């Protein structure tokens, strides 16, 4: 069910205030909503919220037979179907345009960018590998679900610990978490996703992390996924208002700055949660 388009007074008010660099929720144009990360009891259960947008990510692993053409690599699958719980505009079954975009972006950011080392997931070559399954539940859509989902997914992968496995010859023994401390996944780098919205009037500055109204009224979106080491993982500008090369590069530099900040926030939160858990060595 397509939601009604924003009214003309809403549109004009938004454009007029954005021209003066004022956003409706009081943020600066280049200010992110503060991400709030909540960890569950299970390792690999994270709820991420950016303002009112909330996404839940859960990671679980099980041992399976590897693909015949890749006997040394584990498998990572991402499940992210948007249910009408997020917003009434999403219908179960037929993926809307936005859902396809989000699913593909998550695939590119989390899988194609090789964030997690797949070869480290191998237990016994050709016979047993770990299959890591990341499930994302979109709880609420208040704009920019993509960034929230990428953050939740990445933090969940960093938070997850898989059981320790011992291989002697051809025998594989899985140790319970109570016997041996579970091990974290081997993560090469941590990509963060940032979405910028552009508006039809060229005098309006671009904004980061748009809310739902800003997203709907924008004339173009630019999504950048990069890590704190200044490496771009994904850059996507699918149509919308044409931009100069210099403008795009300026946005990339802003994203580099934000990635560093977000990285330190995430690390601090993970550290805080880990110190709260009891890991005894007997």
């Amino acid at each position: 069910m397509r939601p009604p388009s924003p009214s003309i007074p809403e549109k004009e008010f938004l454009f007029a205030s954005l021209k003066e660099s004022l956003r409706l929720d009081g943020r600066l144009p280049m200010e992110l909503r503060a991400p709030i990360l909540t960890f569950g009891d299970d390792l690999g259960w994270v709820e991420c919220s950016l303002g009112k947008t909330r996404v839940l990510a859960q990671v679980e692993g099980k041992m399976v037979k590897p693909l015949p053409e890749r006997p040394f690599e584990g498998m990572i699958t991402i499940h992210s179907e948007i249910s009408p719980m997020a917003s009434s505009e999403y219908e179960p079954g037929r993926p809307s345009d936005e859902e396809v975009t989000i699913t593909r972006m998550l695939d590119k950011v989390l899988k194609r960018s090789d964030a997690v080392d797949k070869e480290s997931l191998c237990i016994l070559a050709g016979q047993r590998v770990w299959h890591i399954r990341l499930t994302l539940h979109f709880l609420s859509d208040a704009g920019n679900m993509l960034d929230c989902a990428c953050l939740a997914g990445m933090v969940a992968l960093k938070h997850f610990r898989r059981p320790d496995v011992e291989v002697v010859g051809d025998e594989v023994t899985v140790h319970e978490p109570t016997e041996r401390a579970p091990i974290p996944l081997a993560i090469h780098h941590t990509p963060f996703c940032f979405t910028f919205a552009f508006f039809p009037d060229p005098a309006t500055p671009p904004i980061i992390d748009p809310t739902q109204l800003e997203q709907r009224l924008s004339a173009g979106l630019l999504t950048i996924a990069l890590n704190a080491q200044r490496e771009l993982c994904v850059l996507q500008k699918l149509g919308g208002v044409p931009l100069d090369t210099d403008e795009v590069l300026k946005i990339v530099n802003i994203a580099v700055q934000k990635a560093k900040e977000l990285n330190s926030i995430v690390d601090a939160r993970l550290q805080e949660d880990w110190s709260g858990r009891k890991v005894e060595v007997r």
Partner: protein
Amino acid sequence: MQGSRVEILNEGGFRSDGRKQYELRDMTIDLAQQGQADGSVVVTHGLTQVMVSVFGPREAKMRSQTIHDRANINVEVNVAAFSTGDRRKRARGDKRILELAATIKSTFEPVVQTNLYPRSQIDVFVQVLQQDGGLLQACVNATTLALVNAGIPLLDFVCAVTGGVHSTSPLLDLTLLEENDLPNVTVAVMPKTGKVTLVTMETRLHVDRFEEIFRLAGEAGKIIHGEMKNAVRSRTTALVTAMGSAPRVGGGDTADKDGDDRMNEY
């Protein structure tokens, strides 16, 4: 089964298909009419071949998708099973193909003057016949030409080029072999203003390397624009001459004072 590793760029500066670093592949544009389409084109970039047919603006088939003040652009992409090296049938709801269609749609929505045709529909059917890298590039270029061929008013051409970086040397217009190995980016520009309308990059690349290849690809788009303009111009000249509306050479016919067109003897 990997044979001997093919060198992407050898010491002589030649790539695996014999091109130099900044050389673009051979581009052919065939604007002949296909079926009942209002506009159609077959574009090849080297070995990548894409056919696009455009219907419209016409009455909307899907009433629910009509917009009250603009035309709705509907893009459908079909990748032939024989287009790649090994025959592979793609499922209808394949996310990659849906993404390609959504990308083409959002690229052309601000370019096509849709406000001239409210409550109508413009159908763009993309058929991929051969794939050898640069699929999005070929689809975007072909769609531009098909829309121009259909006479649908556009703000400007949209010209797309792929670029990649091999260690520190940038390359343009990548083949499948190069695309699989190197970080690559597809850039589409509108030549009149030089502004960038589409950028996609799916592989890891350092920010500094990215700046270099991004600027280069923007420049290369202008070369593609030259080719497209020539093709459109020659096709239009051919049609206009055949219709007999071409300006007459040699002083004009004074025999017909009313100014009526004389029948051409073929």
